[in-house]
């Protein structure tokens, strides 16, 4: 999850950034870009999308008048922008994304291939399998897994980023984990 530097520091940086201060922009970027990039990468599975989204998030910060402290922390504000941008990119590229349920996808093909069975059971392969399973989740489930499980965000903060009730986060996360376990079991069955 994004670190939480003091609100006042972020507020001051945002004020300076909106005035065109380059040093403030770099300080703000260095402070927050890592989690934003990882979030975009974990949501999209594509480095080019993650890079584009990261850049656009920090340029959106130039219009920081949009930031309302009452609606959440600065990190949550950044995640919110990143989320919207990622979802827009995913919509744009939907026809080209490789999905788990696609029988022709690279992921399914590799699991079904008996020659790779031993490797699939190894730790690294298991992690990669899980990564693909996360990417194959519907975006509404994927984002709660990324925020709550990969970025260790609490339910309340995640609800603020996504713009839904805490109960929705809880139920989506429960459902998403069930889907992931199901897919992981399926991959193990294929391996056996």
């Amino acid at each position, binding site marked *: 999850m994004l670190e939480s530097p003091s609100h006042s520091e972020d507020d001051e940086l945002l004020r300076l950034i909106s005035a065109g201060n*380059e040093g403030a922009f*770099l300080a703000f970027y260095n402070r927050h870009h890592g989690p934003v990039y990882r979030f975009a990468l974990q949501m999209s599975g594509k480095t080019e999308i993650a*890079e584009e989204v990261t850049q656009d998030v*920090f340029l959106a910060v*130039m219009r920081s008048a949009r930031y309302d402290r009452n609606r959440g922390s600065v990190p949550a504000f950044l995640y919110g922008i990143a989320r919207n941008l990622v979802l827009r990119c995913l919509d744009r590229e939907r026809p080209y994304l490789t999905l788990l349920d696609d029988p022709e996808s690279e992921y399914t093909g590799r699991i079904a291939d008996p020659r790779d069975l031993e490797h699939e059971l190894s730790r690294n392969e298991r992690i990669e399998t899980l990564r693909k399973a996360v990417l194959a989740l519907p975006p509404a489930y994927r984002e709660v897994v990324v925020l709550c499980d990969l970025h260790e965000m609490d339910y309340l903060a995640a609800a603020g980023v996504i713009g839904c009730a805490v109960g929705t986060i809880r139920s989506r996360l429960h459902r998403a984990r069930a889907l992931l376990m199901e897919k992981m079991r399926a991959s193990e069955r294929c391996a056996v």
Partner: protein
Amino acid sequence: MNQNEQELLKDLRALADADPREAPAAVRERSLVEFRRRSAQQRRMAWLPAAGVGAIAAATLIFFLVPKQVPTHGTDAPTAISNAAIQPSSANADETDGGFYPLPEAEGLPPIETATVIRVQMPVESLQLMGVAVSDAGSAEPVQADILLGQDGLARGVRLVQ
């Protein structure tokens, strides 16, 4: 939480650890370049609203402060009116062409090349002092009058509107 879920959470943590912690340096450079470009653009754009407001204010000021040039003798363009033209032609008819009474202090001024008329409100007694015959001489109400100005901005004549 069952064993499968615990295993899943462990794998998810491993997945989180495996992902890069930072964006490539090129992203930072590109962002910075774009930031500079947009900052410069914002600085340029910042002048536009102020310039727009200033232009509107100036236009409004000019509209209200600069006297309108009105045609005399029914022509569209300002007409040159000579001092002779606004001299009374008879004792009974001090009123000149265009209905302007010549002002005594206008004598000796250069001839009018470009006439400008401004409409003003003035007390009746001021008109009388200018030599304009006013029927309601005792009225305390101000009356509307046109002042004829020459190209030098000096008054040459006065005309009663009301």
